């Protein structure tokens, strides 16, 4: 493709200011739509792991209290 052909392609017959923003909106909106569940999934898994860790820590404490070695004086 020559430089001239490329230039005329980007000019879109004088309608460049309408055609290219339309395509930009199309891609920006769809990329945002693809990314939002990726971030949500990451956050979700992090929260879930934190909750599991908290639970197991609490269970560990509880079993320590009931264990015979930890009798209160």
């Amino acid at each position, binding site marked *: 493709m020559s430089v001239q052909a490329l230039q005329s*392609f980007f000019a*879109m*017959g*004088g*309608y460049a200011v*309408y*055609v290219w*923003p*339309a*395509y930009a*909106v*199309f891609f920006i*909106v*769809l990329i*945002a*739509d*693809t990314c*939002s*569940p*990726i971030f*949500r*999934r990451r956050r*979700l*898994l*992090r929260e*879930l*792991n934190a*909750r*599991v860790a908290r639970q197991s820590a609490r269970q560990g404490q509880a079993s320590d209290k009931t264990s015979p070695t930890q009798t209160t004086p």
Partner: protein
Amino acid sequence: MSNWIPLWLHKLSSPPTFYRFAGTLRPWMMAFALLLGAIGLYGGLVLAPPDYQQGDAYRIIFIHVPSAWMSMFIYGVMGVSAFIALVWRIKLAEVVAMESAPIGAAFTFITLVTGSLWGKPMWGTWWTWDARLTSELVLLFLYLGVIGLYHAFEDRRQGARAAAFLAIIGIINVPIVHYSVTWWNTLHQGSTVNIFGHSKIAWDMLWPLLTVTLATKFYYAASLFRRARTDLLALESGKEWVRQIAAREGKR
């Protein structure tokens, strides 16, 4: 009688099975979407000749029309799965309905904005309150209403049922959008592509349009699978299969 189809469907609607199924299919759907999208847009932007009346401005059609079709198609999918969710209380149907709404809203938004950008040079106005444009705007508000109602409830499943009800009522708007150019005298041009008859468009322009349309269908599947998988993790967060996934992937 062969009963493996209902059996398979029953199995598939169980969250861990669907999670795995969607995870396997999703990359393929996305690959098809990107490949067909690239071919279709190359055909539309480079190979197709300029329109004899609209010059190069008509090239917005290659994203405007597929997006408009998707805005209605996704509403149909959302409406049907909302109905299934309300009647049979299938969790997966709720997820499909509720996760379709943001994708549908995205395509409806694209349709309105690209239409506006096309309308300015061709009609001389960004916006007019005619039947086609107004009914498409109502479609966007319906999507936003479904999303808002879903998130308005503390209990997600209760929210999903309320939003599903709205989605079913709103389905009346889909034929209104489609037939608005026939029923009313509007500024918007009539249908160019006709599935069961003669399309009023040259083949050089038609094949890129249909290719991009197919690409948006695959994109919808890919996006829906990704969203549904995330939503299933959230809904089933107390279950063992989700904890295993979290333990496996959370370390990264």
